């Protein structure tokens, strides 16, 4: 998978970008911590520090509630990737 390289680098991307607050509406910030199936990835895989992991977890949960991102991606309902527009 193309994600593999991301796992080997162990540093906090949010610290590097000097992020002080994570807004749940800013999906580009949540992207680093979400898996392809929109699960919250653990710190051991992303390299996030504890402080930022807690911040991003809260933001992801709010973004789910606001229907910005799905809670789950199942096989029956194929949901368009809302990040697609950002990646292009």
């Amino acid at each position, binding site marked *: 998978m193309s994600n593999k390289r991301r796992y080997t680098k162990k540093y906090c991307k949010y610290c590097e970008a000097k992020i002080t607050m994570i807004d749940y*509406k*800013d999906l580009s910030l949540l992207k680093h911590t979400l898996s392809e199936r929109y699960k919250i990835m653990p710190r051991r895989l992303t390299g996030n520090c504890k402080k930022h992991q807690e911040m991003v977890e809260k933001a992801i949960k709010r973004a789910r509630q606001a229907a910005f991102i799905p809670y789950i991606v199942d096989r029956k309902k194929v949901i368009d990737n809302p990040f697609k527009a950002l990646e292009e």
Partner: protein
Amino acid sequence: MRHYELLIILKPTLTEEEVKAKVDFVKEVLEKNQAQIASLQDLGMRKLGYEIDKHQRGHYFVFYYKAPPSSIAEIERIMRITEEILRFLTVKYENKKEIKQWEILSTKGKIEPQKPEKIEQKEEKETQTEGEKAQG
């Protein structure tokens, strides 16, 4: 007075006038409950992460306001019984750091609404998946 944010998702089926009327209605509700609205942001029509009441899309609006904590229950009660509102979310900004963020977010809305072209593309995909569902 505390710092809050209210996000609402309106049904995609509403006309422009109906959307405006609903936004004004929410504004009135907030003001009636001693809220001082700092800013109102239109995030535009967006694709929902999951279906809500059979709707695939929704029109997002965000209000940043200051209000006494006792007002929140009443504001949320009215949001809940308003049919045109698919979903709402209240966020409280409490400590100094959060209030600073509230000030930044309420003065300059960083989030831009999606481009209309992209929504059109997505609509096509939506109808495709619906067709697939009907088959299966």
